[in-house]
């Protein structure tokens, strides 16, 4: 290729696949099929959530059971902001970013000082506090029933037309994906991967693991919260379910399905997860049975996720391998 070396380093299979996927998403509305648009929006939102999650899990090697907290913080801050302060979805979504940043730092200060096992337990505990607060502080959060009426049409932007909303989400999706790709290619990307590979060694190279973990948690938390805030605008309803730990475990499952050691693994996982749950839910009654069987099959036979499986078929697939995660 006739590219300057600096640029050539930036180009690999991931970015090509990503750009093709974004291009594909951009033409979906042309089909005029609203259900596919709906599924695509879900894939984008959960794709962001899972990719954000995997910064912590796949890169930095930290297992969080509390990512529902960040998603929920995003969703509730956009809800509370648009309903009480300024009625505009775009401003609301942007407002959720500083809130998520503060939350991430607070969570980091509380959880990152101890080991990995304690991180998993502490994030779970914090997210359960947040969840129970959402359930119990009814006068602010609406309790179990949540908050309704989050506007799609606001003072500044009007997203009420499905296609407009679709492209609104797509812009955020593309920006976040490209941002994460740039991070992946930057020195911080390398450091975060090193953190996951051998965190004990890094201090002796002059790096503070606490700072690096904090960076990973902040990026992860903000991206997850952004996904949550878009989700809230999408449904115009938000309930405490999004902060429950089972919801927070979904991006983990997605990352593993796609392959948590691959840059695009979580996105592929989100794609599969959303499609699979849509498909098996048609069997109305017993879709949970099928989901359980699928999970079991994955654990027993496809542990590298789909991308790992593909790589074992087609050796040397240059998708950027990270380490496999270990407790």
């Amino acid at each position, binding site marked *: 290729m006739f590219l300057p070396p600096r640029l050539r380093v930036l180009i690999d299979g991931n970015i090509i696949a990503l750009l093709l996927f974004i291009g594909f998403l951009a033409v979906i509305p042309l089909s005029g099929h609203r259900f596919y648009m709906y599924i695509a929006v879900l894939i984008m939102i959960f794709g962001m959530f899972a990719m954000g999650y995997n910064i912590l899990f796949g890169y930095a090697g930290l297992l969080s059971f509390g990512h529902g907290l960040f998603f929920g913080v995003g969703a509730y801050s956009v809800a509370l902001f648009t309903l009480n302060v300024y009625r505009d979805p775009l401003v609301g979504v942007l407002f959720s970013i500083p809130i998520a940043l503060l939350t991430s730092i607070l969570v980091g200060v509380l959880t990152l000082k101890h080991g990995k096992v304690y991180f998993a337990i*502490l994030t779970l505990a914090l997210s*359960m506090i947040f969840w129970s607060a959402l359930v119990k502080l009814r006068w602010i959060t609406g309790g179990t029933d949540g908050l309704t009426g989050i506007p799609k049409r606001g003072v500044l932007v009007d997203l009420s037309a499905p296609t407009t909303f679709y492209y609104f989400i797509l812009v955020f999706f593309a920006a976040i994906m490209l941002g994460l790709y740039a991070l992946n290619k930057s020195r911080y990307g390398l450091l975060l991967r090193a953190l996951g590979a051998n965190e004990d060694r890094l201090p002796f190279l002059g790096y503070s693991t606490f700072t690096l973990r904090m960076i990973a948690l902040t990026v992860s938390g903000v991206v997850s919260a952004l996904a949550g805030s878009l989700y809230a605008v999408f449904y115009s309803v938000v309930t405490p379910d999004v902060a429950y730990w089972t919801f927070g475990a979904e991006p983990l499952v997605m990352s*593993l399905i796609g392959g948590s050691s691959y840059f695009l693994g979580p996105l592929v996982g989100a794609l599969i997860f959303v499609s699979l749950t849509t498909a098996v839910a048609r069997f109305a009654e017993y879709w949970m049975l099928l*989901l359980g069987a699928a999970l*079991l099959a994955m654990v027993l036979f496809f542990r590298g996720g789909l991308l790992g499986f593909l790589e074992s078929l087609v050796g040397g697939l240059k998708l950027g391998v990270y380490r496999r995660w270990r407790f």
Partner: protein
Amino acid sequence: MDLTPFLVQALTGLYKGSLYWILALGLILIFGVVRVINFAHAAFYVTGSYIMYTFYNHTGNFIISLIMAMVLTGALGVALEVTVIRRVYKLETIYQLLATFGIALIANEAQKLIWGKGVVYIPIPETLKGGVSVGGVILNHYMTLIIVAGFLLFIATILFMNNTVTGLRIRAVWRDPVMSEALGINTKLTYTLVFFIGTALAGLGGALTVPLISVGPGLADYLIVTAFIIVVVAGLGSITGAYIVSILVGVFSSILVLTIPELDIVVLYMIAALILLFRPQGLFGER
């Protein structure tokens, strides 16, 4: 100030705590020895309930049904250990979680196929129908039975672990599986045994509660969260700690219901989180 209501709340809390304890004991044994966090524990619990219901409807005998529920649930646990769980021992924890979570989903649906979607329960045994009245609240004999059973189970577990060869073997594997294997302990067999004990305990818990709690598919999903919190707050690996914390959580949450009903679970989770922030290894755990 009349303290009777608090006493009453404490007593009902004692009963709830004993229930948590039976669940937590199975969890902690399996986690400690087999080193698998068993997400399907709640599914075994409900299975125990259903088996109890079926046997009681056929035999009408409470004791026989209880034993059958324990043994059959344990047997199911062993069957699962041999076919699936054994294959995930060597894997990263996260895959173990997913595997047991998958099993839980399958089990919930299977229960729906076998026992239907309706609510089932059995009556409280005739001899235990009465109760002791404390400040206008009747502490049912059956609830007392569960408190006593929980305490006896605690004593029995401690005695078993400290005074029998099998108990010693289990403790050895708990401490150091590699060293135990080197010393000639059959760890594989120990794992299966512990899985049997753990799931049989879940079955016992499920069976014991059918006279008081109504059973439906996927019932214990909520109960299990509390049991997990107890195990973590107590510290992974402390049996005595798990008993104490179970009882404390039962009593404390019960008193919260009386005093600040608006915020009961928030306060409970806050305290759990605070404990973990300052002692991440749990109250009784070793770092």
